């Protein structure tokens, strides 16, 4: 009796799992293995695949474009700490008993919800050098002496934004700030702040601590698990990111200045039909993501207060 019940449960288990498992095998597990195998081949989809051993990986290490795009990717990721700090500060300001806080939260969250082709198009228009919002503001409200000063330093001003090698990356970073600062990370910080006991702050008040000291001595350590989590997730996302906005806003340009690794994979795989080479880059990217995550978990534990 017990035997048959167990057997039936097992059978039911497989049946419940089956639809998902089939999809998982077909569209995730097999493709992962296939792309690993593919990275040792050269294949243009038309002729038959040719085994090339480690050649793709060796060529990649010598590929100057790859290193430039890796540099671009890391450069764009410099926005991550700024975005995270912004989310934390915003959460601190919002973590008060105030009327209408829900309205503000919805307002801040909106950009991260609708981020996509629609907002990339919008920012392309905002960054229009002649008629865009930002340069209209600069033209009418920016003090002349400051503009002259900036130009005197040899910096392009007013910026040509997306068509300028100097300004294209900062432009994308500023857009990312607008997109994510009030989004998921801020919500997580808000939840974390609500878990901090008010008694800690009361004790600090009695000791005469000012706002700055309270923040560094209480808030920052108390939310460090959240910081650790959002940093890890942002790093993973940042390493793989940058394709969509660059594709819509700059096509990776000017002169490759906004091409990231994910964009380079796209170009090799879907523009030039270099399936093997693209798979090799994707696997190197995976290795880097894996490594960063591992390092994060290993060393993150030491600085996080639980």
């Amino acid at each position: 009796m017990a035997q048959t019940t167990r057997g039936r449960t097992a059978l039911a288990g497989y049946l419940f799992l089956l639809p998902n498992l089939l999809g998982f095998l077909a569209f995730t597990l097999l493709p992962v293995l296939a792309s690993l195998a593919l990275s040792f081949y050269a294949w243009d989809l038309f002729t038959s695949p040719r085994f090339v051993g480690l050649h793709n990986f060796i060529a990649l290490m010598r590929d100057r474009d790859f290193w430039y795009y890796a540099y671009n990717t890391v450069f764009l990721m410099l926005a991550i700490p700024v975005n995270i700090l912004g989310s934390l500060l915003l959460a601190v300001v919002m973590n008060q008993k105030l009327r209408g806080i829900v309205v503000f939260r919805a307002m801040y969250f909106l950009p991260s919800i609708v981020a996509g082709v629609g907002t990339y198009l919008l920012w392309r228009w905002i960054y229009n050098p002649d008629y865009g919002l930002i340069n209209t503001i600069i033209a009418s409200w920016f003090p002349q002496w400051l503009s002259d000063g900036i130009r005197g330093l040899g910096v392009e001003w007013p910026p040509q934004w997306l068509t300028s090698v100097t300004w294209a990356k900062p432009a994308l970073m500023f857009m990312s700030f607008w997109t994510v600062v009030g989004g998921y990370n801020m919500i997580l910080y808000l939840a974390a702040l609500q878990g901090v006991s008010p008694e800690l702050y009361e004790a600090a008040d009695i000791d005469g601590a000012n706002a700055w000291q309270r923040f560094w001595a209480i808030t920052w350590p108390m939310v460090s698990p959240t910081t650790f989590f959002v940093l890890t997730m942002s790093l993973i996302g940042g390493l793989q990111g940058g394709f969509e906005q660059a594709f819509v806003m700059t096509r990776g340009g000017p002169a490759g200045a906004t091409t990231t690794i994910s964009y380079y994979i796209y170009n090799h795989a879907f523009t030039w039909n270099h399936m093997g080479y693209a798979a090799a880059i994707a696997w190197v990217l995976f290795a880097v993501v894996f490594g960063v995550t591992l390092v994060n978990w290993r060393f993150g534990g030491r600085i996080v207060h639980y």
Partner: protein
Amino acid sequence: MRVFRKQDEMTVKKLVTYLVLGFVGLFMLLPFLWMLSTSVKPASDVFTSFENPIKAFVPRETQWRNFPRVYDTTRAMGGGFARWYLNSVLVAVVVTLGQVTTSACAAYAFARLRFPGRDKLFLGYLATMMIPGAVTMIPNFILMRKITEWLTVVAPMVDWDASRVVSVFGRTYDAGRLVGLDSYFALAVPAMFSAYGTFMLRQYFLSIPRDLEEAATIDGCGLFRIFTTIILPLSKPALATLTIFTFMGNWQSFYWPLIVLTQDSMKTLPLGLLSFMGLYSTQWSLLMAGSMMMILPMIIVFLVGQKWFISGIQLGALKG
């Protein structure tokens, strides 16, 4: 005197807080207002230099007909905006239903049913969640590209390469291939299975106390009935969250549709908007009207389902 001081300090602090919050709110909304303002401007007003930004914001003439004009202008592009809307809704609904259903079933198996190899399989699911999308995208694209050739070998009686049409009320519409590139199959099916959704629901199911199920088993309830009458109703918050996230994610989906679609008539909104931009790159009022129409449903879904969003984010972070 001293009694009032504390109160005054509080009022000032509140005022400063509201000022900061309002300023940040303006920063968040300004791009959207710019979008709205551009979308109702006459084409000639877009390329005009204004002496100050406030004048640039307020349209001299409000042209709501820019919105219907987006439909008219794009109609020649395989049906245009109306068709892209339809495709987006269709794909997002099918993918969401499929993903929530298969994830819930699998999550139930992982959370409650004992079978050989269960934990190893679950570990396999977890392990793949970290793999960049680009890794699987390449073989999946090759599969879609080659599948019609392979199927022709297996089943030559069907013309796998042909594009199909459907007739509705006497008019014919392009419906793409059965499978492969430019097919609804390629748009929807690979997106219907999610390791993340399975993981999230499993965690939620584990938090449901087992007493109810045990009582139901004694009453002679089968596993399927337990699943549909106990587990699912108790998991409404998690299911609602997954539904909203999946729908939104699919509505914005860009990379995969970009590589499997070439025909205008099969495009979803993000892709359609992109081709629209390619053809009318200087028509900013129309482009902004199109963008507005694309993001409006998301804003509505967000405002309606805000509660599920906030709780969902916190649920997702628990794995950290």
